[in-house]
């Protein structure tokens, strides 16, 4: 059981590092959106600080969405997914391991990049802990939910827009809770309520989404 998960993690890591553009593009997108915003708004430090929780979260959410469009595409196009379907290994475990590997490599980089961008927007340093924690709890949920959409749209020629339409409504609770946590900590209040909610959403998607993702893939490959 553990042997093939290890092989899968190794395979995914190799594939991501041998095509670094896929890894770096969402990060650049994230950094660009956050960096351009102050230029557009103008030098109003107070306003930027007020806006920063929402801005960082929206940018992070869109960056995750961007990175997920191609999550299963190459595996679908070269026939790897057919091999996955016909393997004696449980598909739900395979997809969970794949999405989590993807998150550890690309999502974690995004979480680590966020404090730098937050300081640029003038977010006080005592809020950075909440920022990192909320992204750490929120982005796995975004990845797993997005993977459901990616699995359903992988067979379509232009699935990108459809993926966004399918998945964005599901992202809204995470967005509200994530930026809410940051907003609360910016105003000096406790953000533990929002963070606990984010944590429970993460556990919920971690448990249920692998089945939805594998069902989606079976539909896409069976077309």
């Amino acid at each position, binding site marked *: 059981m553990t042997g093939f998960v290890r092989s899968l993690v190794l395979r995914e890591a190799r*594939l991501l590092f041998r095509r670094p553009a896929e890894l770096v593009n969402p990060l650049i997108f994230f950094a660009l959106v956050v960096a351009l915003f102050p230029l557009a708004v103008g030098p109003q430090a107070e306003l930027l600080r007020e806006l920063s929780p929402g801005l960082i979260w929206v940018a992070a959410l869109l960056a995750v969405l961007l990175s997920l469009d191609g999550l299963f595409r190459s595996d679908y196009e070269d026939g790897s997914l057919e091999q996955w379907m*016909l393997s004696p290994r449980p598909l739900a475990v395979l997809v969970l391991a794949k999405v989590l590997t993807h998150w550890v490599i690309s999502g974690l980089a995004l979480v680590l990049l966020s404090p730098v961008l937050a300081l640029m927007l003038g977010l006080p340093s005592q809020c950075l802990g909440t920022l990192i924690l909320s992204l750490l709890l929120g982005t796995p949920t975004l990845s797993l939910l997005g993977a459901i959409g990616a699995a359903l749209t992988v067979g379509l020629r232009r699935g990108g827009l459809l993926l966004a339409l399918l998945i964005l409504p599901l992202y809204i609770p995470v967005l509200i809770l994530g930026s809410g946590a940051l907003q609360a900590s910016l105003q000096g209040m406790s953000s533990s309520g929002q963070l606990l909610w984010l944590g429970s959403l993460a556990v919920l998607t971690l448990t249920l989404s692998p089945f939805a993702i594998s069902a989606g893939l079976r539909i896409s490959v069976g077309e």
Partner: protein
Amino acid sequence: MYNAAGKRPFTVFLITAVSSSTLCNGGRAVTFPLLEARALTCERDQRVLFEHLDLRVEAGEMVQVAGPNGSGKTSLLRLLAGLMSPTAGEVQWRGRAVTAQRHSMARELVWIGHRAGLKELLSPEENLAWWSALHHPAARRSIGEALDAVGLRGFEDVPCYMLSAGQQRRVALARLYLAPSSLWLLDEPFTALDRDAVEQLEAHLAIHCERGGLVVFTTHHRLEKQPSRYRQLDLAAWAA
């Protein structure tokens, strides 16, 4: 099983549980199909490709699916593998529907589709190592031997995108030297292979059948070396 029930004595039902495919009964060999398709109908994009197709494949048999382009050869193979659900009819493996026993059938199946499931960024060795982790755990040494058998010694560490189309096909076919599976479903296995490789693959398929394995494959190529129990299935005969 119902189809052959008339021909088959009662003892067969006991043997079915042991999943032996051939038995002698009073000096007469009684066989029953391991892979069976009943009244299969396949419809793609509101176009019926074939209708009421019946297929029975017994141990040691090789079936070449023939037919003009677009007649549904690949679709038939995908139906047999359980990758797709038929519009009507059923596919059974060892007497049970393939969709109801994905797990146990997967242990006995090697599927090489038209898109072979190779990662271009990975080397042949990495590709096979992942494939064997996914299907039948194999030692590093046996992966080397399989690559050797398909003539790719010295290319173990070259990324697959650097290999030619024929060499990439060979990497995919190396799976046939790795796994001790009984059922091989191969979609156009001869594509892009050179003459020697075609000969070698024909011999390998024939040996597999002589040992009691099943091969169902599609090709337009005429086989030079046929096992004793070879037949062709012409899809044009089942076209709607």
